[in-house]
């Protein structure tokens, strides 16, 4: 691999880490909303 490819890989990893975690939180929020509906808590 050359320096340009290493740089691209680094940017892809940073993007996947940050936006992947944001997506994970989005899905946690959705499943939490279902639990809130069951317990009667106001979402």
């Amino acid at each position, binding site marked *: 691999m050359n*320096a*340009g490819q*290493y*740089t691209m*890989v*680094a*940017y892809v*990893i*940073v*993007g996947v*880490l*940050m*936006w992947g*975690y*944001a997506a994970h*939180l989005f899905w*946690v*929020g959705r499943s*939490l909303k279902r*639990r*809130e509906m069951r*317990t*009667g*808590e106001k*979402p």
Partner: protein
Amino acid sequence: MSMLRTTFRSAYWAIAGLSFGATVYAVFNCTPDEATMGTIQKIFYFHLPLAICTFLSCTVAFVGNIAYLWQRRTKWDDLSAAAANVAVLLCTGVLITGMIWGRCAWGQWWTWSPRLTFSFLLWLLYVVYLMVRTSVTSPQRRAIVSAVYGIVAFLDVPLVYLSASLLPDIHPGHVQLAPAMQLTLAFCFIPVTMLAAGLIAVRFNLNRRERLVSDAQQSEYAAALPFAAVGGAV
């Protein structure tokens, strides 16, 4: 009010996403290559903002830990947990981008220089912080134990910051940049800071809601318990 909040959230994440894409484009297409290191220096434009935001997240967790021990309000515990989660995520990014840079600039993935060692220690300390939180079942006990541990863990942050300037280190302590590079670096702080702040806010909100739901479930079980006990006795 709810509609306004939803619009604000959508706009916030849209701006974060657009600025993230725009800065990546600017890094690769509008910023000159550094004279000695070449293309690999472009990792620096996200490496530094990630590192600064890691310090900020650790500081938020630290403030939350102190405030919890002072006031014993659960919102501070939830804030510390959220900030520690994001600190681990950002620190992972710092370590990975640093390792890739080291592979090209120094010819090796890792070296036990002071800043790298203290950065790895910081990541490890906050991973253990999250593990400590999952291992204690009582919410009150968990909050106290993790607050005390979090205050001790934060002591590594100044060590990471000062290590490159106070100790002999292969890691550069101060970097001189051309004006075009400085501008790109300044722009890169926008999406990383927005993402870090947004993730802490979302995680904090989820922690608050999870606590309410688990409290409601526990009170439901407690309400059902006397009938179960009577049924069992009969």
